[in-house]
């Protein structure tokens, strides 16, 4: 009996997972197709852009600045053991542009904007607002989801560009004012090793992460059920799913972008 229960449980879990992935797949396809078909809702796009991009500025900026500073400090204590202090500037700029900028900005924005999206759409779902939209000649996928996907794809690369600059600045501040590098020397070694590809690959990652954050926020909010508790768990799922996907896809993208 126990064995049968376990099998039944496992079966239900697998079916649930398959259903979730299937729903997500259909939602993704539908969402993307709506991004490319009019009517467009510029106000909604603007609002989503503000929510994802503008209001995330402070948290992304601070994260990037401190990350750059810690990187410089940490690599100094490590590298000085074998006299490689001169590599610090390059380590900071390459780590920030290729990896830490997009990944950390992605995680921060998912916690902020992804959660907010899931909560807003979830509340709209359980209070019939999403149903009300379709009774008012408005497709909720077009009105609610497409603008957020678009805003995510555009806003995150811009945030990451800022994070790149502030991360390097953090490293510069520690390098010059604490570790005694010359200002010119630090900047020279920062840019001498930096290639356009480093920055661009980071921005491509950012666009993918921005899409993921908006997708998971919208998807989990859109399908939430059952009042306040349902909205709460939709919010949690959105952040957890986006964060895990960001880290997993970061690996895949790194593999693809830097395949030699």
């Amino acid at each position: 009996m126990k064995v049968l229960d376990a099998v039944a449980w496992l079966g239900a879990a697998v079916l649930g997972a398959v259903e979730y992935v299937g729903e997500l797949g259909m939602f993704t396809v539908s969402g993307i197709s709506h991004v490319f078909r009019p009517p467009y809702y510029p106000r909604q796009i603007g609002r989503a852009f503000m929510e994802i991009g503008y209001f995330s500025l402070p948290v992304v900026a601070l994260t990037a600045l401190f990350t750059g500073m810690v990187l410089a400090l940490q690599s100094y204590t490590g590298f000085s053991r074998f006299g490689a202090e001169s590599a610090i500037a390059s380590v900071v700029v390459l780590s920030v542009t290729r990896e830490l900028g997009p990944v950390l900005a992605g995680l921060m924005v998912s916690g902020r904007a992804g959660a907010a999206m899931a909560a807003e759409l979830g509340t709209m779902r359980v209070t019939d607002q999403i149903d009300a939209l379709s009774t008012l000649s408005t497709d909720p996928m077009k009105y609610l989801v497409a603008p957020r996907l678009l805003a995510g794809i555009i806003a995150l690369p811009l945030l990451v560009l800022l994070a790149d600059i502030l991360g390097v600045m953090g490293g510069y501040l520690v390098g010059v004012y604490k570790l005694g590098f010359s200002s010119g020397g630090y900047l020279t070694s920062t840019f001498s090793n930096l290639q356009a590809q480093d920055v661009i690959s980071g921005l491509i990652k950012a666009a993918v992460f921005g899409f993921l954050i908006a997708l998971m926020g919208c998807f989990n909010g859109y399908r939430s059920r059952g009042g306040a508790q349902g909205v709460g768990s939709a919010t949690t799922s959105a952040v957890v799913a986006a964060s895990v996907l960001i880290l997993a896809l970061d690996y895949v993208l790194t593999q693809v972008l830097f395949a030699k």
Partner: protein
Amino acid sequence: MSEIKIRIRGLKKYFGAKKVLDGIDLDIETGTGMVVIGGSGTGKSVLLKSILGLVTPDAGSIEIDGVDVLKAPRGQARELRQQIGMLFQNGALFDSLPVWENVAFGLLAQKKVSRAKARDVAVEILAQVGLGVDVAGLSPSELSGGMQKRVGLARAIAARPAIMFFDEPTTGLDPIMGAVIDELIVDCVKKLGSTSIAITHDMASAQRIGDKAAMLYEGRISWSGPAAELLTTPDTVVDQFTHGRAHGPIKMALRK
């Protein structure tokens, strides 16, 4: 013999093992008001949502203007359903938009009014439901429940739809406002020649706004007839329900 605007046959909707709608047959004639009554949780809202396409039924047919919207191509079904204005049970106002934008939402979406004029139009419609200009700029969360209901009503009738659904339009309103809203509903429906379905628990309201009435009981329409007969029909289920008797067939059904 007037024509049928909405014809429902054998409509079934199950949620898991729960048979909420279990074979609904209902005709609504063009230009008439149908009142649907029934106990809490019997599926009245689900019935309206099925017609609107917000809930997918498991079986049956729903004809609007003679076309089965469950089988018609998506575009045609959407067009047929676009004639329906809906007042949701809880209002379902968009809380990210001010009151006037809520009211004008459908008009703006259908490009029946320009953004510049939308606010004035909305204020006019708000006045019809007894709300002043001062309300127009507020957010829905700043309104009382009854005011939200009236804004919901204003939004539902703004586009002068040919079909109107009212899910408990007077619940949560004081008796006088309830009567005013009833009058407004009758007015709209009659003036525009619209067809309406209203759900209500209020028998006085039911007789004011309904020409016909139907009782939803155990997943089916157990009784239907002129709304005027609601309180006098010998049907035991309707009699118990409309008179609010604690004892009768409905209570027995719940006990077993």
